[in-house]
C-alpha cells in the first residue's frame, strides 16, 4: 500500500552537471510526474530517487533512468521524481524536458 521508493546511483566518465542551481518541471497529475534536479557535490556522481505508487516495475524504472543519466553524461546531480503512474515514455520525455529547462540560459520560471 505504501509508496514505492527507488534509489539509484551512477558514476559516468567526464560527467556534466546542470547550468542552473536547481530546476523543477511537471505536475503530479494522473499518468504524469514532477522532476526536481539539483546541483550537488557528489564527487561526479548522480543520485536518483523515485517515489511512485507503482510496484513490480523496478527493473523498467532502472532501465529508463540509467539510459537518461548515462546517455546525457550527468554528474554532481540529484534527480528526484514524484510519479503518479506515468508510462516509461512519459517518464523519459519529462526527464529530457527537465534537463533542457535546467540548462536554459535566460532566466526562466522559478
Amino acid at each position, binding site marked *: 500500500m505504501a509508496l514505492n521508493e527507488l534509489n539509484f546511483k551512477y558514476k559516468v566518465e567526464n560527467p556534466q552537471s546542470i547550468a542552473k542551481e536547481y530546476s523543477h518541471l511537471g505536475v*503530479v497529475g494522473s499518468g504524469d510526474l514532477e522532476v526536481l534536479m539539483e546541483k550537488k557535490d557528489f564527487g561526479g556522481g548522480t543520485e536518483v530517487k523515485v*517515489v511512485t505508487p507503482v510496484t513490480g516495475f523496478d527493473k523498467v524504472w532502472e532501465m529508463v533512468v540509467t539510459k537518461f543519466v548515462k546517455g546525457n553524461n550527468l554528474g554532481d546531480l540529484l534527480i528526484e521524481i514524484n510519479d503518479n503512474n506515468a508510462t516509461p515514455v512519459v517518464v523519459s520525455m519529462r526527464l529530457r524536458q527537465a534537463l533542457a529547462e535546467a540548462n536554459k540560459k535566460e532566466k526562466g520560471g*522559478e
Partner: protein
Amino acid sequence: MLSWDELQKAKFTETNARERAFGLVDKGTFTEFVSPRDRMPSPHLPVLGEAIGYDDGVVTGIGLIGKRPVFVVSQEGRFIGGAVGEVHGAKMVQAIKLALKAYEDVKEKYPDSYEERLPAVVISFETGGVRLHESNAGLLAHAEVMDQIQDARGKIPIIAVIGSKVGCFGGMGFVGAATDVVIMSEQGRLGLTGPEVIEQEMGKDEFDASNKALVFRTTGGKHKYIMQDANFLVKDTVGGFYQQLQEVMKLPFAEIEKFRRIGSKELVEEQLELVKLAVELGAKDSMDVWKYYGNEDPAKLVDMGPEEFLKVAKRRERKLG
C-alpha cells in the same frame, strides 16, 4: 516553462498553477514560498499509497502589481483535482497571514502613502474542495482560510480568480464566494455541488452532467457574470486576468468593498430576494433567468465571444454596491 510575455497570451485553461502564479503579477516579480525545492509533500498520502507532490498541489508566493505587494495562491487541478489537504491548506492560510502582516508593516512604514502600497491577496481557484484522503485536516483548512478572509475584511482586498479547468467547487466554492472580488472567464466555473455529484445524488433528470452546454450555462462565467456572482468577466488568457487585476488594484478600498456579494445583513437580504425570485420565476434553465433580466434572445449569448457578450449582456441590477 513559458516566459512571462508568452504567458500573457497563453490560455489560462492550458497553463499550470505555477505558470499562472508567475503570470498574474508584474513581470519578473514573483517569488515562490515553500517551493518544490523545500519539499513539503502531504504526510498523509504515502500511507495510503497515493502519489505525492512537493508543492502539495498549490503554489504560493509574492509579487508586485505596480507598487502593491500581491500575495498569490494558485491551485493545481491536475494534482488530486486541486483538493485541499493539510499542507495545501496551511500554505493558503499562511499566504493570507503574511499579507496581513505586510499590511501592518506598510502602514507603519508609509503612514502617509500606505493606500497606494496596500497589499492584496489573489487566489486562483482550481479545486473540488476538501481532499477526502485527509478529510478532517482538509475541512479544518477550509475553516482557517475563511477565518483569514474575515480577518482581512476592511484591511486588504482578497481577489478570486476563477478560470481553470476544474473550476471552484465544494467547500472552496464557499471560500470563493466569500472573497471581495470575483474575476472569471467564460471557461471558469463556480458552484458548491459539482455537476457529477448532483447527477449522482439526484439523477440525470435533475442535472445531466454529460451535457457540457448545460453545465457551462449553469455554473460558467457568463451566468455568474449576469447574476453578479462574478464581478468581472475576462478573456481566457493569463494576460486577460492580469490586466483585470491591474484595473482592480487602481480602485480605492471603499470601491472594492462594494463588489462583495455576501458579508453583511443587507447583502444577505439581497441574496434572499434571489431565493424568492427562484421560486416565483420557476426557471427551468439559466436562460430563463437571463431573459428575466432583459436579455431578449438568451440563446444567442451562449455562443457569443467574450467581447461582444460584455457589450450586449444585461445583468441583474444590484441594490447595494
